[in-house]
């Protein structure tokens, strides 16, 4: 037990010290913005993560999501954008906390992300992207209907 713990602590320390040094760019939003992860409502979550800037809609930021989720425990989402965003976040008002995930986008990367989220009930899903350099916030949102399913069976 002791040796394991020591190794665990050692590894964590190693990661904490070495990783920031070797990465060219690594942004862990949990360590940089811990409070954003505890917020309940999307409206407040966006403020906590990105501040109170105006949210613009743009055809260059879109996301695909089912209108009616087949399984609330696994809802496929695709985020696409041709804007030069430095980060993109997904919020929903279906769970006790609104922030589901945040992508930090490497310079010159293709923004075409596929992933799956969990939602306990029907709610609006909002994505917000922050443009590199200008800091402009772009947004898109959709309502996803969750009538059957949940977190596992």
């Amino acid at each position, binding site marked *: 037990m002791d040796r394991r713990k020591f190794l665990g602590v050692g590894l964590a320390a190693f990661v904490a010290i070495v990783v920031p040094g070797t*990465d060219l760019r690594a942004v*862990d939003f*949990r360590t940089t913005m811990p409070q954003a992860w505890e917020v309940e409502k999307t409206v407040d979550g966006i403020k906590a993560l990105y501040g109170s800037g105006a949210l613009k809609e743009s055809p260059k930021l879109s996301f695909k999501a089912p209108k009616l989720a087949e399984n609330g425990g696994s809802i496929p989402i695709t985020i696409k954008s041709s804007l030069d965003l430095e980060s993109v976040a997904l919020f929903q008002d279906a769970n006790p*906390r609104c922030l589901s995930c*945040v992508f930090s986008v*490497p310079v010159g990367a293709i923004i075409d*992300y596929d992933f799956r989220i*969990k*939602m306990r009930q029907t709610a609006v899903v909002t994505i917000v992207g922050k443009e590199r350099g200008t800091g402009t916030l772009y947004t898109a949102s959709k309502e996803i209907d969750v009538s059957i399913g949940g977190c596992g069976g």
Partner: protein
Amino acid sequence: MAKMKIKAKEKNGIVKVKAMFTSLMADKEEAIKKGISPSYIRYIVAKVKDAVVYEVTMSGFMSENPLVKFEFKGNKGDQLTFTTIDNDNKTETDTQKIK
């Protein structure tokens, strides 16, 4: 049991990646209901030659055994390395050659 599975294929200079990670993705509430402690991957980063090509921070409200897909400009033969950190700060890492 594999902690993650990575598939990366390059075509016309664009590498399409599919990766699946083993995790219950149980946030606080779900963990309480199941009688376990919260267990979810909170951070995933993918690198090629030390350059970050994909990076995401997550809550537990992602589906179990999260499967992510993305693309980036890359070359066949390069090594794609994924590192994940879970809510207990445990790290896993794995590498796959881009086909």
